[in-house]
């Protein structure tokens, strides 16, 4: 059976530390916008940790929510693309084909989660920062939309490594950069078609919710809600 990649984010574990954010930058050659451009809303974070305040001082709470491309089954970004740059792959990834993108930015508008980022200029790495670039990931040129790929390069190399070793792909063989770095282990990635995988099992957790569920986008990222403390029964 074909793979169907999915992710689970345990909000009870997430500490908002943003290790995933930098890991994503490092893995995926995401350009740094710089202060001026960041001030004009051009900072690119394929993965961001949303923070919301609840209540007022002193009874205040904070909610962290890492938001990346939700790889929706019914992704609103796909159909609106005139060139099929955005489409669904056989493994359930919401793919963005950079070569086919002409920069209408329609997909980014259609995306309910605002997880698509646009190359307003040709990306630049001041020498020798280009040496940090990951050779497995292409650098996107001006006018191209980009977003979280679930580290498709890692999926590919994980599959080919398993094939080279002549074995089946196991749960946990493939870890996107954010999953690998997450100190608290709050992000879990796996094959949703493999019912034994951690991701598949956690997807059905009673704590599981989808982001903006009522938009009907059928995301493949599940958020496990934060729990509250219940006073244990003291004998």
């Amino acid at each position, binding site marked *: 059976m074909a793979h169907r990649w999915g992710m689970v984010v345990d909000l009870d574990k997430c500490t908002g530390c943003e290790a995933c954010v930098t890991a994503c930058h490092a893995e995926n050659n995401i350009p740094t916008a710089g202060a001026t451009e960041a001030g004009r809303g051009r900072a690119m974070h394929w993965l961001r940790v949303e923070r919301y305040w609840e209540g007022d001082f002193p009874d205040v709470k904070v909610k962290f929510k890492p938001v990346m491309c939700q790889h929706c089954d019914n992704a609103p970004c796909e159909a*609106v693309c005139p060139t099929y740059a955005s489409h669904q792959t056989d493994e359930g990834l919401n793919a963005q084909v950079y070569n086919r993108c002409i920069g209408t930015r329609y997909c980014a508008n259609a995306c309910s989660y605002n997880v698509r980022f646009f190359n*307003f200029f040709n990306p630049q790495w001041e020498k020798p920062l280009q040496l940090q670039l990951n050779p497995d990931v292409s650098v996107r040129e001006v006018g191209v939309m980009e977003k979280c790929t679930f580290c498709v390069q890692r999926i590919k190399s994980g599959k080919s490594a398993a094939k080279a070793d002549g074995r089946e792909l196991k749960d946990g063989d493939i870890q996107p950069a954010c999953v690998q770095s997450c100190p608290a282990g709050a992000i879990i990635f796996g094959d949703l078609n493999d019912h034994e995988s951690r991701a598949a099992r956690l997807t059905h957790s009673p704590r599981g919710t989808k982001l903006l569920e009522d938009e009907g986008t059928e995301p493949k990222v599940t958020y496990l809600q934060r729990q509250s403390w219940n006073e244990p029964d003291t004998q």
Partner: protein
Amino acid sequence: MNRTRNNPLADDLIRPLLHTSVWFYGAVLVLATIVLCGAAAWAYQVWYGIGVAGINWPVFWGFYLTNFVFWIGISHAGTLISAILRLVNARWRRPVTRCAEVITVFALMIGATFPIIHLGKPWLFFWLAPYPSAREIWPNFRSPLVWDFFAINTYLTGSLLFLILPMIPDFAVIRDRSSGLRRRIYGTLALGWQGTTTQWHRLEAAMQIMAVAIIPVAVSVHTIVSFDFSMAHVPMWHSTIFGPYFVAGAIFSGIAALIIAMAALRRTLRLHAYLHPLHFDNLAKLLLLMSLLWGYFVFSERLTVWYGNQPSEMAVFWATQRGEYASLYWTMVFCNFIIPVGILSFRRLRTLPGIVLVSCGVLVGMWLERFLIIVPGLANKPLSYSWGTYSPQPTEIVIMVATFAAMALLYMLFSKVVPIISIWEMKVGNQPHPALPADEEEEQQGLWRARP
């Protein structure tokens, strides 16, 4: 009834083609400079990247798409109105049709450049066209942008033909009345037109069919432009009212543009004898009707959102109603509803200056309407963490100004090469009844009064 050489009609209408004032050259120079500035701004943007515009995350569409919708809206002045008037055989349409249809063609051409200007990679714009562009993949027919391509393509083709076909007999007139190079040029353009009864009949029949065909196309064009927005899950975009709302708005702004163009023509080309107060008055009544219709749509849209009380929609609602965009919003309501209804409802106020003033206001208001549809929705999508804002940058403003200059320039140049009022249609109009002699009286006296 003298129908031949002594009739000043053809002379009047061809005169602008033969005599050109210094003012014309001056104006062309100024407008062409502005257009070149716009071209330079675009070149700058292509060179450095679309980032020189003010668009950002999450407001990925800004001035360019606003202008796109605005100009496509303006294009609804011409062919659609002209086709409707032709079908209902409104006699007063005759001097109006061509100057209206020209607006359609040029506005469409200008409007259609904006989706290209706004592309991240404009050098690949032709990938929107239906051909197997990259790796044998055809465009995605599910994308409203591809629908746009088809709709604009059909409407532009139709409008262009609708404009050009009735020009052929007029070219023949110019051919027959000129000599030398001009005769050869217009001779070619006239395609050997003789004016045989067969030709006249075929032309009339073709125009009749085209008029029937172009009306649904025009309606579909702005509906499809509205689909660019209503197909996306952006708060206050995803609305079924958008089709008719956009079409009504388009006609509304189109009529305003037509009134301004006609007033300008009347003054600069001294066409007082042809563009009568009646024409303006009729168009003003149409404008009033569209203003009321627009108000009705806006009210319906706002009421349903307010009543529905969905948080993400209400965020946009309040951002426009009383937040960041409130000043623009209320200016829009003022220009599109309060002023037009306030002035055009009263016969006494429905004077030429009044009508032109209202029309200018409507253009401003309708431009703002498009801006207020596009930007606040994108800036306030459901995840409030990703809310943003937008401010236009010089490149966008220069390009926008340049397109207005381009419209004026094209219009002026057109009026220099083609009679802006269809000669033969005017003649036909004169056949059974002499047209409104009273008007001419008034014109001679330089008076302008509302007609009883």
